[in-house]
């Protein structure tokens, strides 16, 4: 098991470094000078060149990337060109929000999808199954930003139960944070729930057809035991993969949702950093995105090994 974990860990690190190099190159390939964007359209050439030197933009790109990597090893992400604050600080504030949003959405998605998917599979042939399928098809078809706007119109503009967007900060207390995040979490989580319900149903239907389930039933086990102990456990590997994918999905999907709800999350930070050619900030944010995605798939990989001993030895 240890060798398996170490192997996966090395792959993960290599992926992160590769991702940062690709992003560095991509941002460089797009025209645009951060100094020009900061100074605005009436800047003089002298002011431009002074600011470029001050921001360290006169250093050749490869050397800049090298310096960035060297600092990264020491745990230093550099300073944002636009905000003149350490990237680590900026990113830390934002990451909390994006993680809360993603976890909340994943929680909404799984707590709806697994019971509904199981129910639809078990009650196949009753009215419940087609209803679930229909609802989940509809849910999967609605884009999250549009669902977000509908939720805003209903709960913020019409009913005035919740704020239309923005985030008061964690220091405003858990209730205020919960109120601010409820609509975005739903907008992000419901679509994901729809996709996951369909997958849970399909996986479980497949497992329920297997011989060992028939054997278990033949032994006279109750249906709770058959589904809980035999069917669901064997469906677990697929369900965990799905959960990992959906976490990644909601994390990426949060970029759009943060824009719609004006939330100060990692996604909006990334968009503004790219727009302003704030290289250190783009690098820092992408590193975090890559890191999170790699971490999630690492956990998923390792949990396969734990759930299914056959994978460990493969």
């Amino acid at each position, binding site marked *: 098991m240890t060798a398996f974990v170490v192997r996966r860990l090395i792959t993960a690190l290599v992926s992160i470094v590769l991702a940062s190099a690709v992003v560095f190159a991509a941002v460089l390939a*797009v025209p645009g000078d951060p100094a020009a964007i900061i100074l605005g359209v009436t800047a003089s050439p002298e002011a431009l060149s*002074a600011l470029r030197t001050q921001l360290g933009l006169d250093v050749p790109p490869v050397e800049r990337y090298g310096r960035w990597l060297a600092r990264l090893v020491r745990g230093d992400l550099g300073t944002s060109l636009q905000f003149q604050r350490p990237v680590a600080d900026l990113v830390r504030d934002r990451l909390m929000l994006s993680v809360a949003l993603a976890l909340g959405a994943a929680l909404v998605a799984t707590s709806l999808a697994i019971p509904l998917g199981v129910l639809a599979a078990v009650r196949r042939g009753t009215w419940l199954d087609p209803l679930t399928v229909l609802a989940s098809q509809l849910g999967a078809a609605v884009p999250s930003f549009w669902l977000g706007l509908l939720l*805003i119109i209903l709960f913020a503009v019409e009913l005035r139960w919740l704020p239309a967007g923005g985030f008061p900060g964690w220091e405003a207390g858990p209730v205020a944070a919960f109120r601010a995040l409820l609509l975005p979490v739903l907008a992000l989580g419901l679509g994901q729930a729809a996709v996951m319900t369909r997958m849970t149903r399909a996986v479980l239907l497949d497992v329920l057809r297997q011989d060992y389930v028939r054997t278990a039933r033949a032994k006279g086990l109750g249906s709770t035991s058959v589904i809980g102990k035999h069917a669901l456990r064997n469906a677990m590997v697929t369900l965990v993969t799905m959960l990992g994918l959906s976490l990644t999905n909601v994390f990426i999907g949060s970029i759009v949702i943060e824009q719609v709800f004006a939330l100060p999350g990692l996604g909006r930070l990334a968009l503004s950093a790219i727009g302003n050619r704030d290289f250190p900030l783009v690098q820092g944010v992408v590193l975090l995105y890559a890191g999170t995605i790699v971490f999630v798939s690492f956990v998923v990989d390792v949990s396969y090994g734990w759930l299914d001993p056959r994978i460990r030895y493969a």
Partner: protein
Amino acid sequence: MQRHVRWLLSAVLTFGWAGCALAQQEGPTPGGSLVVAISADPPGWDPTLSTSQEIPRVTYGNVFEGLVRFDRHGTIVPALATAWTVSDDGLVWTFTLRDDVRFHDGSPLTVADVMAKFERARDPDSGHVNQQYYEAIASVESPDPSIVTFSLTRPNRSLLYNLARPDSIIYPAASAATQRSQPIGTGPFRFARYVEGSEVRLERFEDYWNPELPHLETVTFRIISDPNTRLAALQAGDIDLIGAAVPPEHVGVIDATPGLETHAGTATTEITVAMNNARPPFDDPRVRQAITHAIDKEAIVRGAFFGQGTVIGTHMTPAEPYYLDLTDLYAFDPERARALLAEAGYADGLSVTFELPEPYPFERRTGEVIAQQLREVGITVNLAVVEWGTWIQRIFLGADYDMTIIGHAEPRDINIYANPDYYFRYDNPRIAELLAEAEAARSAETELEAYQEIARIIAEDAVNVWVFSPANTVAVREGLRGFWIDQPTPAIDVTEVFWAP
């Protein structure tokens, strides 16, 4: 939302008082808070280090002040200086400072702060932007702790105007390095908190030199980039004021919402179709005139902006003192446009690339309509949307483009036509001569004539197409008083804002 509950309560109480309260005068009431929407994070908070309009929108008049300032009508009024005089030859300007001004860090304003400011403003290594505003200043001296004199190399009529701009604010001499992240000014509000991407909070400054201002306790500027989200936040009661550029299509919705209202004011923005005057086919004035004739500006304002704007014919808006109506010079006339194109050798049509800046929806929308209008006179238009960083780099700084469209928001910036390296690549030495004449003018009439002459020459040369000046539409919650409706300079000045009782 909480405020609504409070209002409801006070309404009930008022009724209980059997009309007593109705007789009350509607004067400024102190206290309360305000939430304002803005659209983007600025690149730091120091207006002397970046020309981004997002900085003065929050800080002008609220956090920072200069010797003089613009009021809501664009009139130059005293701020940190109580009075000023000019010598007869126009070469010495003398300002008297207020003696009761404190900065937000508690230190008093001194002449040393004022002198340090103008040292920075003229030092090419300081990073201070728009140094051309201070070019004519030869030296700044202080013969007395309350007097500052500017000695000029040449008469400079626009000096006072430039001293009122957001670039000319004064902060403590030693704080220049930290102003970007911790602004310290003399304004009625001090900078309390900034959460990037989320909000900026200003709090009432107790030691403000004018004891009657401000009225509000706190002002929060919420950063909401999406206009639809801004609208929803206003309707939901999360924000109280959208201080600039409400999209015209939202005006009807807001006016129909009980408790909300819009006000249409003026701004100094010219939505400009810029043409690369150095590059064929735009190096032929007939082509530029043809393009001007081909564009139906009225139809754009009516059709795409619900009538919320004024058609213009040169680089000046009716909100400015030198305004000259030249809209009839090359009026909409597709026949004339085709004839001019034929005369210029493009009888079989021509093909141009028209690039629209991604972050500006008004310009993009205008550009799309214009492309259609140009196609109708036989011009093939290749439309492309360019991202902002690219626009600045390639189009604005590199002048590598055919045609683009952008709003020139700065007030009094007709001087850009005197610079042959500006992205229009318009080279006419006469403009620089006239500008110098305007600066050296001994009377307001001569100055006005010189500016209007510039406006006329660039219009006759059809350097660009000046399409219209969009109205500055402000959306507010009912009961808010004292906000700016016009934008003589880009600013959401909340100094005099209060909630009606």
